[in-house]
């Protein structure tokens, strides 16, 4: 009896905390369906009194203001997907090479790569800005993709996996006359699928949600990402139209929320593995 009572108390507590976590999101969605007048009037109606789609229509069609929101969304999704594809491919190759193949100097290369995990972004973002600027590559997709691809996290994550991968499978294939590349593509990669998904989800979320780098590396309206675009709108023409701002943030959040809910398990795996040293 006493134990049951305690359980119920804990569940109630967990529910209240859960509500605290959800309230900002519910309020965001609720406000996005209110007209500016109702939003600013500051009522406490969770269900809008005058339910309206005008904020979504206004932001999506770019009526009156130049808001290339589709372009921003495309930029974010494209940079996220392309960056993720590059990271996965290149990190898997490097991690496999370092973990299993006779790469020259691998004793030095692996610690060198891993030690860069400690190097904060602050140290590289100004010179990287100058690098891209010198080559006239600011405001291109290159600037939105490549800076993320040198991160050693994926090499570290996959290296651990390949190290513990049983040797027998590779050896059997070798006896059948398969070369390194064939073994990598046909045997190693299929078995590494779960951990590769983990890396993919991590990378995509990191690129899609990044703020500081796209903020400084792009300034043409067409090359903004969705995260920087909405920040510009907040400081510009939408500054006190919270209905429109909340429509914009809702639209920006939907794709990443879908990725998050689908990839949650992989994400959790990645986080816990990064904590195991």
């Amino acid at each position: 009896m006493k134990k049951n009572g305690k359980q119920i108390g804990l569940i109630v507590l967990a529910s209240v905390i859960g509500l605290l976590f959800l309230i900002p999101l519910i309020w965001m969605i609720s406000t996005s369906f209110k007209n500016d007048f109702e939003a600013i009037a500051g009522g406490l109606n969770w269900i809008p009194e005058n339910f309206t789609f005008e904020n979504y229509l206004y932001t999506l069609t770019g009526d009156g203001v130049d808001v290339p929101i589709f372009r921003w969304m495309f930029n974010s999704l494209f940079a996220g997907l392309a960056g993720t594809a590059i990271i996965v491919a290149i990190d898997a190759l490097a991690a496999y090479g370092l973990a299993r193949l006779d790469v020259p100097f691998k004793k030095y290369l692996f610690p060198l790569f891993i030690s860069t995990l400690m190097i904060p972004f602050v140290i590289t973002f100004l010179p990287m800005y100058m690098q891209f600027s010198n080559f006239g590559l600011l405001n291109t997709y290159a600037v939105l993709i490549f800076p993320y691809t040198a991160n050693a996290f994926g090499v570290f994550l996959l290296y651990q996996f390949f190290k513990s991968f049983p040797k027998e499978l590779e050896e059997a294939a070798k006896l059948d006359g398969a070369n390194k590349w064939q073994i990598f593509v046909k045997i190693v990669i299929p078995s590494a699928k779960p951990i590769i998904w983990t890396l993919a989800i991590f990378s995509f979320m990191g690129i899609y949600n990044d703020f500081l780098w796209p903020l400084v590396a792009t300034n043409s309206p067409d090359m903004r990402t969705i995260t920087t675009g909405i920040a510009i709108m907040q400081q510009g023409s939408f500054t006190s139209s919270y209905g429109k701002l909340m429509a914009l943030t809702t639209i920006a959040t939907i794709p990443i929320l879908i990725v998050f809910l689908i990839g949650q398990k992989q994400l959790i795996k990645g986080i816990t593995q990064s904590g195991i040293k």
Partner: protein
Amino acid sequence: MKEAKLPASKAKKERLSKFTSFLFVLPYLLLFLAFLFIPLVYGIYISLHDYNLLSSVQPFIGFENYATIFNPDSAMNSLFFEGLGNTVKFVIFSVPLLVAIGLGLALLLNSIPGKLRTFFRTIYFIPYAISVSVVSIIFLWILDTNSGLLNMYLMDLGFDAIPWLTKQPFAWISLIGATIWWTLGFNMIIFINALNEVPEELYEAGAIDGASAWQKFIHITLPTIRPIMLFVIITSTIASFNVFGQPYLMTRGGPGDSTEVLLMGIVNLAFEERELGVASAMALLMSLIMIVISVIQF
């Protein structure tokens, strides 16, 4: 003849094998050189020059940028150290809460039934998926003095409206509140995993000795999860040191300059005043502090 030839061809084969293996690492190595190593060296180079982007020449000036930062009479000195002070304040206020509440939620979830546990874990973890600009704009709206949700409820209950973003200490409370809401899930996930690794036998032994729940927590749980605890403290410290988006969007450094954190100062100096030399020197110093913090871990 045959015997002499064999080792040579073997050596050749080995060289070829090493070469094809090296090709696996080559793409990453190139990206590593282009987007980590070169920027690192280039950053040091820039910091040793009077690197104003508006000027046509960027002469070498040795360590003068660093000297200016440490010269108490210069504007760069106050910019750096006031910014650093604000960043450190944010770290000191946020990290203990991020760690303690993260652990608290993990303990709470571990003591409710499995199905509900997964459900609530997802709920608590959702904000982590959202970008800092969305988080900041949602909280700007909720904390709005005149029509924000929080003040509406406070006034409903008979309190005065609170200037959440324009007066201290409320501005700090708002920034830290938004940060906790946003990133707490990450620490919670790590703690949940750490708690699951604590051997059940230890608790059983504790129960036989008649230990209370609190005693078990202090004498069994905490010592066992200590390494993970340290990891969470360090990663939270580093993350908080990098704070930028929340004050940039929510308080814009105000009221006054009280929430103008170091990274904001560096970005301003580099992209508004175009003083890349001093800004790079500051970025290097800031990174050095962070590297020292993360080395503590080992």
